[in-house]
């Protein structure tokens, strides 16, 4: 459904690319993917209804996907995984790391394509605020999880959490806490929400922190379970490293190919605000009336 939403959003822009194509090959290639879109009033009419509905269907998927994944952990008996706080914790973490990743890519894209007039500082400011909120929610979840483990009186639970914070993988736990909870707190200050370099560095650190969150959850719970004879220290093998390098490569391959061949910013959506903006600039007195009309 996410892929459908993404593709439907591209159709009118693909038609624009088709009609602006300078070579026959491009015209045919974009034409096939544009499916013969003409932009007639009836097409737009159905399109707007369908696009809104797909958005409405895709939004709750964010919640369901991450809460179901988190319940896969929670139904196990392993201390550190067997927690009821997991669904909201994972959803907040997903939004948090999603925004961080988008911010990282956006900074690069904006710089590379000169999109400063379209992706404005206001967008960055709002994204920074969301990261501050979700980062703090994630921090709250860390605290709740720790408190409940201690308060439960279950020796396995409290051992697991003390082991996370002070055991052999303490470095990973504290990278997670500092990158995800402490670092985003700089966004309380407007000065940092207006600075691209600060936001870029913070978003990178959050990406690192969220990676370590998954590492901490998975590895520290598994490396010392109920039987001390099972205890060991996790060391990634060459295959583990290959998987992570390969997945980065796979992602960036598609991302860069997309940026090269498709519009990185929705053309039709930007155009639709251009005319209103132009009118408002031309006649500031008539502004309120026009805005109501639009």
């Amino acid at each position, binding site marked *: 459904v996410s892929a459908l939403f993404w593709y439907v959003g591209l159709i009118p822009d693909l038609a624009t690319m088709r009609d602006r194509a300078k070579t026959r090959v491009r015209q045919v290639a974009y034409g096939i993917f544009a499916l013969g879109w003409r*932009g007639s*009033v009836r097409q737009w009419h159905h*399109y*707007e209804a*369908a696009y809104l509905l*797909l958005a409405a*269907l895709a939004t709750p998927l964010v919640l369901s996907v991450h809460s179901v994944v988190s319940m896969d952990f929670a139904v196990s008996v392993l201390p550190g995984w067997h927690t009821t706080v997991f669904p909201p914790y994972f959803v907040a973490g997903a939004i948090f790391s999603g925004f961080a990743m988008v911010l990282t890519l956006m900074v690069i894209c904006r710089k590379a394509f000169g999109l400063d007039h379209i992706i404005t500082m206001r967008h960055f400011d709002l994204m920074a605020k969301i990261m501050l909120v979700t980062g703090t929610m994630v921090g709250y979840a860390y605290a709740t999880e720790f408190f409940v483990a201690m308060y439960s009186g279950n020796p396995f639970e409290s051992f697991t959490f003390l082991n996370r914070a002070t055991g052999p993988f303490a470095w990973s736990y504290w990278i997670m806490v500092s990158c995800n909870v402490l670092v985003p707190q700089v966004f309380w200050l407007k000065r940092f929400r207006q600075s691209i370099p600060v936001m870029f560095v913070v978003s990178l650190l959050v990406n690192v922190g969220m990676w370590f969150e998954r590492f901490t959850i998975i590895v520290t719970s598994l490396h010392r379970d109920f039987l001390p004879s099972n205890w060991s220290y996790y060391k990634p093998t060459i295959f583990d490293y290959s998987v992570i390098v390969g997945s980065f490569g796979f992602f960036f391959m598609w991302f860069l190919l997309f940026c090269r061949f498709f519009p990185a910013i929705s053309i039709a959506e930007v155009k639709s605000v251009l005319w209103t903006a132009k009118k408002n600039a031309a006649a500031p007195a008539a502004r309120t009336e026009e805005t109501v009309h639009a």
Partner: protein
Amino acid sequence: MRNPFAKRPEPSRGVLALYEDPDTLLRAAALAKEHGFAEMDAYTPYPVHGLSEALGVRQSWVPYVTLVMGLTGAALGLTFEIWTSAVDWPINVGGKPYVSLPAFIPIMFECGVLLGGTMTLAALLLACGLPNLKKPILDRDLTNDRFGLWVPEMGPDWNEARILQVLKSTGPSDLRVVRV
């Protein structure tokens, strides 16, 4: 609701008026509607609000498809879950009821979203007559920066001279008869 499968008659020519901005197009569409031109269409690079009202386009039926198909998907998901866990191979898990609705909700939801979403796309394509790679492109600027009003040849009372005269008064940047 019009039958979406019904074949519309394909006109062989029509008058195309191009405008520089959406407001002029909206005014022209209203005027043309007053003159009673039939089966008009407008082509714009982005959705222009008020245009479908001006041309009298009926409300989209796509949302009904989403609703019905979403509910059907959820019902099918639920039926399948009940069948697998209570009918075909009942397993007693810790004394829980075979038909344990709370546990079935995520799958019901996912099935509803899946069927609702894919069928919304199918309905959209059907409603827009897509994919249709053969339909001629009236003007390449229509997906770019021009707003077009299209009055196709419909029936014997189609009067080219009158249409041209009416549309000329609306101030188009380009006005021509297109054969398709």
